[in-house]
């Protein structure tokens, strides 16, 4: 069809160029509203964070002074900051990994269900409709050390020794948080895996079975390589979400006991809004960005290369 057009139009090169330029301009105008919003709401404030990170801005006063690298020096020397970084890494990587494993397992379960498939897909998705905030609010009461449902159930089952101050034990709190964040059936992640699983050509699976491969081998050599694309997407998205886990920390522990369960996202919030140290908070925000960027790029690069190999 394109050749026909070229033949009939008979236009000069100049006209084609002009049209192409006009086309380019038109396409740019299409992009413009979103682009302006995006630059205004995302890029510009991010750059301003870098600027504020060199000041002693308190978040209220109109004035602030430049303090050079002092905020960064203080952050590097702050045990509280490193602790929040450690927590962020545990929660970010841990939740991305565990949620993906759970999601894939649930997707495999769903893939084997052929009757009432819609019903089972729905119940698997339902829990993810509840917001992290709401579910944490409920957990907070259920995990109370003295009268929470969890400890009462454990006691009734004769497992008193396991009863615990779940949200008050500084040594384990971060793992409790990780557990609660991963207490899910995956929602979107599961559905992405499921739709990917269902697009695996059945012929391949059957051919492998004919060759005498068992279920595990089929999964390892046929299904798993086909999933590479959704693994990359799911893991990257889960990781990006994991870096900024906030609601659970805010509701369940408020960063405590003491400072042990603060994450970077929570740390920035506390500094900027509770402790009137927005300049310092901005420096932490810049570091958070660097962490997110580096880890996302590395994982993505690694996963893409893995996709190609397979």
């Amino acid at each position, binding site marked *: 069809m394109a050749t026909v057009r070229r033949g009939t139009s008979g236009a000069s090169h100049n006209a084609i160029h002009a049209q192409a330029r006009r086309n380019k301009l038109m396409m740019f105008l299409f992009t413009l509203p979103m682009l302006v919003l995006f630059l205004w709401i995302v890029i510009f404030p991010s750059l301003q964070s870098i600027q504020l990170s060199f000041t002693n801005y308190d978040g209220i006063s109109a004035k602030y002074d430049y303090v050079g690298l002092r905020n960064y020096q203080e952050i590097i020397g702050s045990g509280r900051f490193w602790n929040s970084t450690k927590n962020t890494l545990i929660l970010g990587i841990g939740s991305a990994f565990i949620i993906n494993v759970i999601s894939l397992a649930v997707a495999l379960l769903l893939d084997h269900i052929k009757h009432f498939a819609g019903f089972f897909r729905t119940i698997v998705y339902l829990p993810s409709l509840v917001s992290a905030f709401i579910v944490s609010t409920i957990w907070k009461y259920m995990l109370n050390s*003295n009268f929470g449902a969890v400890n009462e159930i454990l006691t009734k089952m004769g497992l008193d020794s396991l009863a615990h*101050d779940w949200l008050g034990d500084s040594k384990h709190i971060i793992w409790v948080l990780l557990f609660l964040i991963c207490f899910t059936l995956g929602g979107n992640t599961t559905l992405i895996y499921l739709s990917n699983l269902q697009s695996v050509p059945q012929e391949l699976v059957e051919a492998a079975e004919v060759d005498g491969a068992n279920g595990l081998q089929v999964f390892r050599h046929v299904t798993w390589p086909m999933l590479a694309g959704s693994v990359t997407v799911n893991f990257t998205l889960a990781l990006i979400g994991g870096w900024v886990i906030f609601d659970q920390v805010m509701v369940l522990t408020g960063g405590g006991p003491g400072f*042990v369960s603060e994450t970077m996202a929570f740390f920035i919030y506390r500094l900027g809004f509770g402790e009137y140290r927005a300049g310092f908070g901005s420096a932490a925000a810049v570091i958070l960005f660097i962490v997110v960027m580096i880890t996302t790029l590395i994982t993505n690069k690694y996963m893409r290369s893995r996709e190609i190999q397979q």
Partner: protein
Amino acid sequence: MTYGFARNVKRAIAAVSAVAALCGVAACGAGSKTASSGDANGGKTARFLYATGDETWNATVKAVVDAYNKQSTMGTVVAEPLTAGSDYATAMKTMDATNNWPTIVDMRDYTTYAKAGKLAPIPSEVTDLLQDDAYAPYSDGNVYLVPSSANNGEIGINIVYNKDYFNEHDLEVPTTWDEFIKLMDDIKANGDTPLATAAAENWPSDQIFKPIANSVFAKHSAEHGGYWMDVANGKASLDELKEPMEKVKMLIDNYVLSGWQSTQDAQTTTLLVTGKTVMATTSAGLGRLKDINKVKSDFNAGMFLIPDEEGNLNVVKNAVGDTSTGLALSAQSKENGTYDLGVDFLKYFYSVEGSNVVEQSGTISANIKDSDKVTRNESIPGSEDYFNLLKNPKLKWISNESPTEGTFSSFNSFFRQARVAYQDNQKDLDTTIAELKAEFAKDVPAQN
């Protein structure tokens, strides 16, 4: 087929925009309550922003605003709740950022805003109604904060206990520190848990610390505004806090119900009425007694203060700290012409009539000059203990003001968290004190 699809999409978008437009109208309607306008009382409308979180106080605000509007000729006051929760500072800051100040505002931590010029001075026609020690001027000589309730300082930070249990086991309210320890040993010997405290939120972790640290604060009370001012000016050291912090740690290790790290203040009522503990710390004073009564009307609650070694009951009296709340008038009210109405409301609030309304609603009214004419409300079980505390000869009012230069609240917030970390065995005392010193130096400069 694609065109049919497109039409459907168009219809869907039209429907969505219609809903959106509808919501828009509703939101505008809801959002436009800020302007002051004329009304039935012939005057203006002033907003009164109050901190929620304590139901007694909510009820008090509602009662006194209604009573004021009924008799007012100048205009109407509208009560507007402010998210308090555990994050009052954030809520306050958000409100400030919108530059949408109400006329009358229920403040904590007022120095930040007084310094920023956000508050208007309260005139002497209001302060003249109050007892002289019920308010204090800011460093520029103006008064910006007047008490929202009885100027009983931090007497609300005390211990509530199960009176029936005390009677049953022949236990007495302690009059010295040693008796307090002995009391807890006795309860422990019965196989019960003596004390519960809450530290899940930042602020209530003061409940167990302050009454004990007050004996240190008392030593610096006489001149210069108190301990924190002395620390800022190099006349006192944070090392002095070692002793009360160790005492608190000793209580935590030996007598306090486990799970205190994750217990919310609001949950101590449960612990007390279900017998998980015999005593519980509180920062709500009468509010806690009310809550207990609401939950279990036959529960016989009592209240006492932790005494120091000499038997003194040290209570911080200052109205201008960051735990004591107060009322302020905004600078913005001068611009929008509602300042006079705000003043008139405060005058009513501190009249005998207004005070009676406050008392009836369950809050103890502010210390006005005519306070002996006010009718006290002793209907809540245990409240007699509270009023007796006020008459106790051992009660010693001490002053301990928050430094106004710098951001003492940043330090205080850090201090509470650091204290919890120490009590929780995450850090030893010397490390904690060293960190506190560094933080204090950063946040609070020398004061004048």
